[in-house]
């Protein structure tokens, strides 16, 4: 069952929990996953997002999130001005297929040149689900302390990573592994109840076959 503050809360900038607060959280999650400030963002808006984004400030909210602002930050309404000179944003409306009506795809280029595509949906009440990261199907809610790894798909990797968390006393709430093909690159997402310490992240990065590991805090 949900918590009290899912009903009385969150504190947010209006007008819409799904089109504004959820959008800001999507932007902030994408920023976390990119791991550095974005210099460029091409944002595809689908469905209801595409139809009403200006009236709901969805565009401002997504950019605010990409700038690291929280969904209750009053600067959210000025986010497009704040982005001027440091983040070049383009909005396009696009049919992304059979996805949630409030879906956005964020194509980001970080200040270091790192590229990332994150697709996510705002599913109501400010709740979000990240559904795709660089072509991998995922399911990430931004409510937990999350560890994401990109690794080679071979036996034992998952056990080694979860062993690191077990030693830290970190409890895994949800876990999902996906891969593009057998034996190739795989993506693992672990959502934990407790914060995952930086040294645990370092240990995960040392696991053979792990190519990338990053922590995404709750947003």
């Amino acid at each position: 069952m949900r918590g009290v503050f899912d009903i009385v809360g969150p504190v947010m900038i209006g007008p819409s929990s799904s089109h504004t607060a959820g959008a800001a959280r999507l932007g902030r999650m994408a920023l976390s996953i990119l791991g550095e400030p974005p210099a460029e963002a091409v944002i595809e808006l689908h469905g209801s997002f595409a139809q009403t984004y200006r009236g709901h400030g969805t565009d401002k909210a997504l950019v605010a999130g990409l700038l690291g602002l929280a969904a209750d930050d009053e600067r959210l309404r000025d986010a497009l001005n704040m982005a001027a000179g440091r983040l070049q944003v383009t909005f396009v409306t696009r049919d992304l297929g059979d996805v949630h009506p409030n879906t956005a795809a964020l194509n980001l280029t970080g200040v270091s040149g790192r590229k990332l595509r994150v697709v996510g949906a705002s599913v109501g009440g400010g709740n979000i689900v990240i559904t795709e990261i660089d072509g991998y199907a995922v399911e990430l809610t931004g409510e937990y302390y999350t560890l994401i790894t990109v690794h080679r798909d071979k036996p034992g990797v998952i056990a080694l990573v979860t062993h690191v968390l077990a030693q830290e006393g970190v409890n895994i709430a949800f876990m999902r592994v996906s891969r593009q093909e057998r034996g190739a690159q795989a993506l693992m997402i672990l959502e934990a109840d407790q914060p995952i310490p930086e040294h645990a992240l370092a240990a995960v990065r040392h696991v053979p076959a792990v190519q990338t590991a990053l922590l995404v805090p709750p947003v």
Partner: protein
Amino acid sequence: MVRFSRIAELVALAEQQQKPVGYIVWQYETERSQRPSQEIWNQMHLNLAVMREAVQSGLASREKSLSGLVGGDAARMKDRLQDGSTLCGSAVYKAAAYALAVSEVNAGMGRIVACPTAGSCGIVPGALLAVGEGLGCDDETLVQALFTTAGIGLVIAENASISGAKGGCQAECGTAAAMAAGAIVEMAGGTPRQVGHALALALKNMLGLVCDPVAGLVEVPCVKRNAFGAVHALVAADMALAGIESVIPADEVIDAMHQIGLVMPKMLRETSEGGLARTPTAVAIEKRLFGKND
């Protein structure tokens, strides 16, 4: 462990422990989240502070929303309150004005507490703060009342829906009115049983309400519906405090709301494809704002 998934269970827990419903809900959250109870209480205090700020800034502002469709009406109500010519009594009038104020702040990209949603964010603060002023309630009483609203909202979310896209406006403004009705009964010294009846009475009269926002915005009719929702809550609470009982128990009303949501056409569930959103005026507004004509 404090566990409840129905209003009857929540009322029974409060009766057994001889505590207010809000206290039980606070206990529930403490156990569920495994966080210190004082921290949870303080977090609700912050929500109360945000609600109060939204009321104040909404009453003071005459700015229009981005679309120009709403804004300034709470200030109009405040003016009329000051000239002393209102037809409604002070609590009812203030509840409507405060709810309007918070909803206008929401439409203007200001800070609010979703309660349970942003579209219905005016009802609970409108009703609770207006009644609180009339009764001279302290902040602790208001915080406890917010826990009561949360408990009611949790049960409705669990057994029906709090999303306009799923259940229509009954799920958002209806739920908020039910939450507020139960909580203000408790603020006025009513029993847990009266809390249950008040929320049932409020919700029954919002059943079937469709979500038909003009141009897809959380403005028309949402902002004004918040004012009416708050008034609804006050009337339901007064009826329950007078000893009136809902013939249909609260949980069955919630189940009925769920059933109605399931059969409600998609065009009347936040898609702006029917109802007020398809009136000639709404179509013209949509065309003006977004260049669409169908």
